[in-house]
């Protein structure tokens, strides 16, 4: 059974009715029922389109965190062949909040890294809800080292609420690990394409998202701090997360306008979780196209391209950003 978000209640009701009716239609021959069913289906589709056509940033936050949204493992299963997962930071431990390995991304030899949130309760605990400790970032650095050494492009899939805020993580240098991982992204002499597929939470996301090309899924969010965190710091009230989500400009659409990201990957109607295979395929196609565009460039050019990409963000001579003016 599908998990419905709070704002999807009306759709949930219609779809529940559709299910009931479908069961009846199968057992009876009542033509009126099947007509009714078609009507309902059209209505549901229309509502879904209306709703998803104008999701506010807080709704998008919930979609980005949807429990059925495709995860790292599903992307890899569908897009990467001959995948060999690598483990451990060679210093302290293995951190399954970040996964990575070698394989062929739609046929192209490469390195893949990303956050894994897990799906079942057991998985979520194992992957620590995608919140990495220093070891996760150090493993990512190690895998990026391999990419550089063997001339393999890097694909990163970002989906984390942020780096883990725990005692052990602090003791082992969370800040340093994130800083070094960001630095490693930026020093790579091979192309790196990053996609924010769900939540891009703060420094824990940047550490894996400082690529030549940074893309976002249509309903993904990318934030300096979670909306709840911002609300509790700014207004001492985590309940005002919606306001914070709006004020911080965290949607793919706003961030494209601000020049923070390079492109948006369209999601199936109603969000990636409604048609995961299609969402995964779209992400695959977008990454392949981005890698194609970076093909044949030498290490120096790749690094210069990345430097230029980040330096120009927010520079005053750039055209003034006009984020989502129409939404007001």
């Amino acid at each position: 059974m599908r998990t419905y978000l709070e704002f999807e209640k009306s759709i949930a009701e219609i779809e529940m009715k559709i299910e009931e009716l479908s069961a009846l239609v199968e057992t009876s021959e009542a033509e009126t029922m099947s007509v009714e069913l078609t009507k309902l289906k059209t209505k549901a589709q229309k509502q879904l389109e209306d709703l998803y056509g104008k999701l506010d940033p807080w709704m998008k936050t919930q979609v980005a965190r949807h429990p059925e949204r495709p995860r790292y493992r599903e992307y890899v299963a569908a897009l990467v062949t001959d995948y060999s997962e690598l483990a451990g930071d060679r210093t302290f431990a293995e951190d399954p909040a970040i996964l990575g390995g070698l394989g062929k991304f739609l046929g192209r030899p490469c390195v893949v890294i990303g956050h894994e949130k897990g799906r079942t309760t057991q998985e979520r605990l194992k992957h620590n809800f995608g919140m990495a400790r220093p070891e996760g970032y150090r493993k990512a650095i190690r895998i990026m080292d391999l990419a550089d050494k063997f001339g393999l492009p890097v694909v990163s899939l970002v989906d984390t609420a942020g780096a883990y805020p725990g005692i052990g993580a602090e003791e082992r240098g969370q800040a340093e690990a994130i800083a070094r991982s960001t630095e490693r992204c930026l020093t790579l002499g091979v192309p790196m394409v990053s996609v924010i597929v769900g939540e891009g939470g703060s420094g824990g996301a940047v550490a894996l998202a400082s690529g030549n090309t940074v893309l976002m899924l249509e309903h993904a969010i990318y934030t300096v701090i979670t909306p709840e965190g911002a609300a509790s710091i700014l207004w001492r009230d985590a309940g005002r997360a919606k306001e914070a989500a709006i004020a911080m400009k965290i949607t793919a659409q706003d961030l494209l306008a601000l020049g923070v990201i390079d492109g948006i990957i369209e999601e199936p109607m109603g969000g990636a979780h409604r048609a995961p295979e299609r969402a995964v395929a779209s992400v695959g196609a977008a990454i392949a196209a981005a890698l194609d565009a970076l093909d044949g460039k030498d290490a120096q050019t790749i690094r210069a391209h990345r430097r230029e990409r980040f330096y120009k963000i927010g520079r005053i001579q750039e055209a003034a950003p006009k984020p989502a003016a129409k939404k007001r």
Partner: protein
Amino acid sequence: MNWLSNLARPGMKNAPEDKRETPDNLWIKCPATGELIYRNDLEAAHWVTPAGFHMRIGPEPRFKALFDDQTWTLLPLPSAPVDPLKFKGDKRYVDQLKRDRAKVSRDDCMQAAHGAIGGRGAVILVQDFQFMGGSLGMAAGEAFVAAAQEAVKQNAAFICVTASGGARMQEGMLSLMQMPRTTLAVQELAEAGLPYIVILTDPTTGGVAASYAMLGDVHIAEPGALIGFTGPRVIEQTIRQKLPEGFQRAEFQLDKGMVDMVVDRRLMRDQLAILLDVLMARRARAPAAKPAQSAPAPQVLSAPTRKALAKPRAKAAE
């Protein structure tokens, strides 16, 4: 990037710049011991109390403490877009900016200067916690890039004195993007073979700790400085227990291997001088900096300060 969570350090409100506004305030209370200290003595001791408590200081006293002959030239810093998100909150972000700009007579939290340290050319960039908690926004990031590039141009060492709660939420992702942007500037220094030394002061957390503050060739922390990624309040909320005494303080980070040394502010210039002398041995010495903005004659440490210096390093009180 929970920068405000680190604000609540008791007794740290009396930053020197505030005092400068009220010259009649001749006596200042040591936040650690409550002892009253003669203001001139405190200033001469670079705002380190006799008990060894390192008070937070802004760019000017910092330059005084670090440059040879207390002589430096301010570097112009690029301007950055103001309130790029038109941030909506209870307080208008532009009003907060206006208030803090008036307070420090500067556009944002960063100030950079060029001078010499032990005869070696150096650019020092100071982050001022007084300005919106030293938060890293576009102006600060752009200042970091510009100052580092100036160091490359001048063939000078680059020293960054950090003091920040982290990213500036009111600038959203444009703030977070300063992490990779400043990291690129650190790379430019590395490519030029120039030393990049970080002086971590109280507090250095969040996106600042997780970018340029942790990418130095040498990390020097001031005694008692809070240094870490997540602020203590958020960690306590997460794990629902109290953190141990001294957690994330400079001495803790020395123990954990995140900083090379914990150095008393009054000895900082000398420490930098010997480091730069070795790190820049293959380079010719820089000519003495032109005294475009010079401070009064070198000051003599007052007796209590000398006494404090002679004592083994005092631990900052909580």
